[in-house]
Structures are given as C-alpha cells and as structure tokens.
C-alpha cells in the first residue's frame, strides 16, 4: 500500500499510547504483507503470479478480501474493479512514470482486465484467472481493509477514542474525543485544498475520499488521474473529488472509487441502495467545480462550487 498510516488517540501518557498503538500498527504491517502488490512475497503477489496458470489456494482472510472486492464489482457493474493492475502499469502509475498506452497495448489490456475473469471457489478457497495476464491491484480497497482490521484490534483493546487515517484517503473515527460528539474531518476544496468545503463530524464510522490531487501526471497540458475507468481502460475524466461516509472503511474505500468512476447522475441512483450513506461528489474541471451532495447533511460552502441542478439536500 505504501501509505503513511496515522493514528490519533487519547491516553493518559505517551507510554500507554504507544502500547495501544503498537498492535494496531502491527496489524497494518500484517495486512501489507498479505496484500501489497509492491512486495513480491505478499499473498496477493503470489496469486497474481500463479492464478493465471492454475487454481491457487489461499487463506480465508485473503479469500474474503477478494470476495468483497468482487461483490463491489458486481454491485457497481464494474465501476469498481481490482483487476486494473495491468492498466495502472500501462499508464505508468505503478512506477510513477506517466505515459499513454498505444492502441495495440490497449487491445491487449482489454483481455487482461475485468473482474468477471476472476473465479473464486469458496469450497476449496481457490482463485483462478480465466484469462492470463490478469493482475490484481488492491489500491481501491486495500487501505480500507487495513483500517477496518486495525480498528478491530483497537476495539479489542477497549480503546474508546481514536482516529486512524490511511494517507488521509480513508479515515476511521472510533468513538469521540473526550467531551465531544465526534471527530471533525474537513472535506477540502479540490481546487483550493487549504479551504474546507464542508466539515463533518464522525463517530464510529469511516470516511473515504478519492481525488486526483496527489496522484496524476500531466502530458500535453492534460491531467491524467490515477483512478481508472475500467470499462474505458483509461483514467477517469471530469471528476475532481469524491467523499463518502459508510460504517465500513473497506466499503467506503471501494465506494469512493465507484462514485469517482460513475457519472454523478448514475451515482445518485446507485446511492439509493445505500440510504444510510452520505456522499459528496465534486465534478468538473479546474476552472469550474460542480457540487453533488447525496444524503449529505452538513453545510457546504457554496461560494466555492456550483450546486448541481435539482440538488436540494
């Protein structure tokens, strides 16, 4: 995952804080060992190497991670897809050297991408790729998965108040700071990151964001975002930032990608199946941002974005 995880917690002294934090960080390291596609010895890398040739037996935890990923793919009709590994490489995001693949490359990539090419058999806990060359990239869900696991450890230690952030893109708020109703998290203006478009208070829930602000490349004056539209085999266009609140960090991480890839009008329809979730989508370009709040209850600074027509939530 290669992300910096930051844990905020309340404790009587630094020693107690260290003692409570250590097992949570250890859990994150364990998940990184399991799912990192940057580590050749990880379980995910082993699956990437071997599942194109045969059936790879994996452990229940990794299997459930893959199953959850597949469920989100099915539910989002492919807007979320962990088979974008080759796409990420072809567009140069894996080694941070942005480039545009040729048509011939894209033709091959079409065969090497697609969640429906993953076969999971729960009876044998096996994974198989029906097409060779598939490469799983946990980028759209792994951080959330790690956050959920680490939060479970904090809960088992009876930590009452903590906030865990995975590179600021997935955050979990456990309980609330003493005397407060929750942890305050700012939704930045994608065009002016120092400015808050909205501020949410979170308690026992997670928030994930997707944006192009940190990972992108510019070629010929055009900005290419690191979030892929799997159907088009290319980076998403016309989207600036997505924020979503869901009780599960794994879900919010995956959902932030779903909403980033889908058109706002489709996202609004999709969100009907998630009545308890709140989302804040900002589409547009660097010249004009359009805000699309969905079930969003907090105040939005409307001086910084145009509200979507008909959006009166």
């Amino acid at each position, binding site marked *: 995952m290669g992300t910096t995880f930051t844990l905020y917690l309340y404790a009587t002294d630094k020693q107690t804080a260290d003692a409570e934090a*250590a097992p949570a*960080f250890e859990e994150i390291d364990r998940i990184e060992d399991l799912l990192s596609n940057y580590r050749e010895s990880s379980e995910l890398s082993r699956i990437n190497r071997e599942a194109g040739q045969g059936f790879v037996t994996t452990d229940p935890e990794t299997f459930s991670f893959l199953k959850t990923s597949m469920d989100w793919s099915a539910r989002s009709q492919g807007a979320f897809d962990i088979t974008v590994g080759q796409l990420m490489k072809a567009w140069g995001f894996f080694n941070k050297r942005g480039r545009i693949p040729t048509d011939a490359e894209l033709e091959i990539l079409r065969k090497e991408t697609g969640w429906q090419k993953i076969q999971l058999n729960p009876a044998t*806990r096996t994974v198989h790729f029906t097409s060779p060359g598939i490469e799983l990239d946990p980028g759209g869900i792994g951080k959330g998965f790690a956050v959920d696991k680490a939060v479970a450890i904090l809960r088992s230690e009876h930590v009452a108040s903590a906030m865990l952030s995975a590179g600021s893109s997935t955050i979990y708020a456990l309980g609330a700071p003493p005397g407060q109703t929750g942890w305050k998290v700012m939704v930045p203006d994608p065009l002016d990151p120092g400015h808050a478009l909205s501020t949410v208070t979170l308690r026992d829930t997670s928030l994930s964001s997707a944006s192009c602000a940190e990972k992108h490349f510019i070629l010929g004056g055009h900005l290419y975002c690191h979030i892929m539209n799997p159907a088009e085999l290319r980076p998403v266009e016309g989207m600036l930032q997505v924020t979503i609140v869901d009780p599960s960090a794994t879900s919010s991480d995956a959902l932030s990608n779903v909403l980033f890839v889908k058109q706002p009008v489709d996202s609004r329809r999709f969100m009907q199946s998630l009545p308890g979730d709140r989302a804040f989508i900002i589409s547009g370009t660097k010249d004009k941002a359009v805000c699309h709040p969905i079930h969003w209850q907090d105040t939005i600074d409307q001086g910084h974005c145009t509200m979507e027509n008909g959006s009166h939530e």
Partner: protein
Amino acid sequence: MDLMNKVKLNRREFVQTASTAAASGILLQAFGAKAHAAANDIIRIGVIGPGSRGQELIRQFLHLPDAQITAVCDIYEPRFTQVDRLVGKTVPSYRDYRELLARKDLDAIVVSTPVSLHHEHALAALRSGRPVYCEKALGFTPEECQGLVNAVDTSGQILQMGFEYRYAAWIQKSIAEIQAGKIGEPTHVYAYWHRNNDWRRPVPSPGLEHLINWRLYRETSGGLLTELGSHQIDIANWVFGEQPSKVIGTTSIVKYHDGRTVGDNVQAVFNYSKGRRMFFSSLTDNAEVGNQLWIYGTEGSVQFTIEDATFYYEPKKAVAAPAGAEVVQRGITTGASYQTKGEMPYRGAGEKVQVENAEDPTLAGCRAFLHSVRTKEQPIANVHVGFASAIATVIGNRAMYDERSYPIPAMRKA
C-alpha cells in the same frame, strides 16, 4: 479535569518474527499414536502453541491445498477463537499437548511454543511418531539441543527448523553465488536486527505478564540473541559451512526499565575457523538499519533483507583470465564497477538478485516441510542446522550475561 493527552503516532516498521505462544509445562510422556500420510492425501497438522508466530505458520499452511489444520493446543485459551477465525471453522483445541498428541489423526506437529518449551514439546511429538516443524531456537540449554539431535538421529524422524530464510529464493541463489566465489572469500558476517519498540505484547491482566511477555524474562527467553539472532547466526553458519567455536558479547537495558530481565540491546561476536567472524547487533530504540545482514568477502559484499538480496563489488583489481575464457558483461554496471572516493562509503546502486519466484519464505518452508513429511527426506533446515544456531545462542547468552568469552561445544554424534 481532562488528564488525557492527544498523541499522534506514525506507522512504524515492524517485522514479526517470534511467537507469543504459551503452552503447558507438563512433564513429557511418550505416546504411540501414529498416522501415516499417503502420497496424495491431505497432511493433517496439529499445532502446539498457536500464538502470533504459530498463527502465521497456520496462515501459510492454509495456502497449501494438501495441508489441514486439524487440532491446536495452548494453555492460553483466547488463542482458540483466534485460530478458529483464521482457519474459518472450529478447530479442535486442547490445553494439554499430550491430549493433542494422543489423537490418531495427526500426520505432523508444529511446535511454536516459547523456546524454553521446545525440547519438551518437540521430543514428545517425535516420540509420538510424527514429523515436527519446530520454531527456532531448537533448545534452551546445551543438553536440550543435543537431546533433540539424538532423538532425531536415532529415530530417523523428520524435524524441520523454522529457519525460513533457508527457503527464501533470493537467499538460496545468493548463497550459491557466494559459494561459487562471486564475492571472493567471505570473511565476515555483520548482522543487524534493529527495531524501535519495547517488544512488549499487551497484557489483558497483570497476572498474565509472564505468560504473554515470556520473551522478556530469562527463565523463558533467550532474549534478542535467541529470538532474532538465531536466524542470522544460521545464515552465518551456512555461509561459513560450520558452527561458531567461541563467543564474546555484552547486553544491557538502556531504555526499557520495566522489570524485564533480558537486555533491550545486545552485541555479540562469534568466532569461526580461519579467523572469520560474525557480529550480531540488536537494538530496540532505533530502527534506522532495520533487519539486514551483510556478508563481506575479499571481492565484494552482499546485503540480505527479508525481501531481497543485493550484491556490491570491491574496486576491481586485475585478474588473469583463464585462456579462452569468455568475457561477460554484468547486466548492471553500476554494481559491478563502482569506485569508492577515498574511504567514503559507497552510495550507488547494487546488483539486485533476480529470482522468478519470490514467494514468502515461510510459505516456501511450509511447502518443503509437507514434502519432507511425504517423502521422509530430511529437510534443508534439519536438526543439525538447528543445533548449530541454537547452541551459539545458548552459549552466547551466557557470554553476554557474564561478559566473558566462552567456547561453544560441537554437536556430538548420537
């Protein structure tokens, strides 16, 4: 009044190695329960001590379609629910390892208890007629180490040590290249395992301190030299082709004055023949160098980590090539032909060892163990390999506590 302070902590590097297992201290009894695995059958495994390291072994066995976790034993019962969650079903569990060994349906036993119990549990498992995967170190005293060698050698049974580096593709390839002379004559191994944490595990209630934090007390733990250094001593033994003959060392508590009786830092030097030496250092208050091991040879150096291996070369001197020798340019010239500037350290790239299958070394070790169980072939990390490292840690600890130099006894033939 709010006495709470908000503390912000950043993620640290942390490498898991040793187990938090605890298991019963009941006296050894032999049982005759035996089971035999046919060539394509599932190998049914019983795990004594499924603590953190034991659970990692279970996880890796779950990646192998021909292994099944059939039963577990621990005196700390919260482990059982952890195992059930990991395996995805209820695994029969015992508080007494003798009851686990009495089962008729186990083909192999994993021993991942604290080091002070390895001898008792491994010996009982061997006597029950099962192959054993034993976490390091082999034993806690010279007699225990020798006793397990005798038990294996006289029975012909399989005992594989939890030395996963022996199974890491990049380390196997590097050692072959070192043995072929790629860095000239290897004369020194410098091993570092540095961390920045207190090595403590959270304890649900004070009465469980010694059970959970057994690593911190001399009665149950060989400290950093045993729990971490045994891996690196094993690599030095592999490189030098022998066990060390002598050791000096020192240890202290520099930061964690919390009642522990093992040091929170250790330094030890092991003597090998022909003047060769191995240096081991472990700190727990600075993680800058992490876990890495260097092999220094007369013509180059190799760095081993848990993920890769990298070769570096000394500035070249003219060497007469044999007549008709083919000259081959190395793939990466930066590694092969660097020049140091005066005595400044080299800061350029090295030549990373390329391997096709960089799978997790513990998984590779577990797979090799199943192969040994089926074929009765002795493993690479066999009991003799286990002895050579364990005896160095046992005597090394004595040398450090007494701050004296002690000879290390050689293995006796059974």
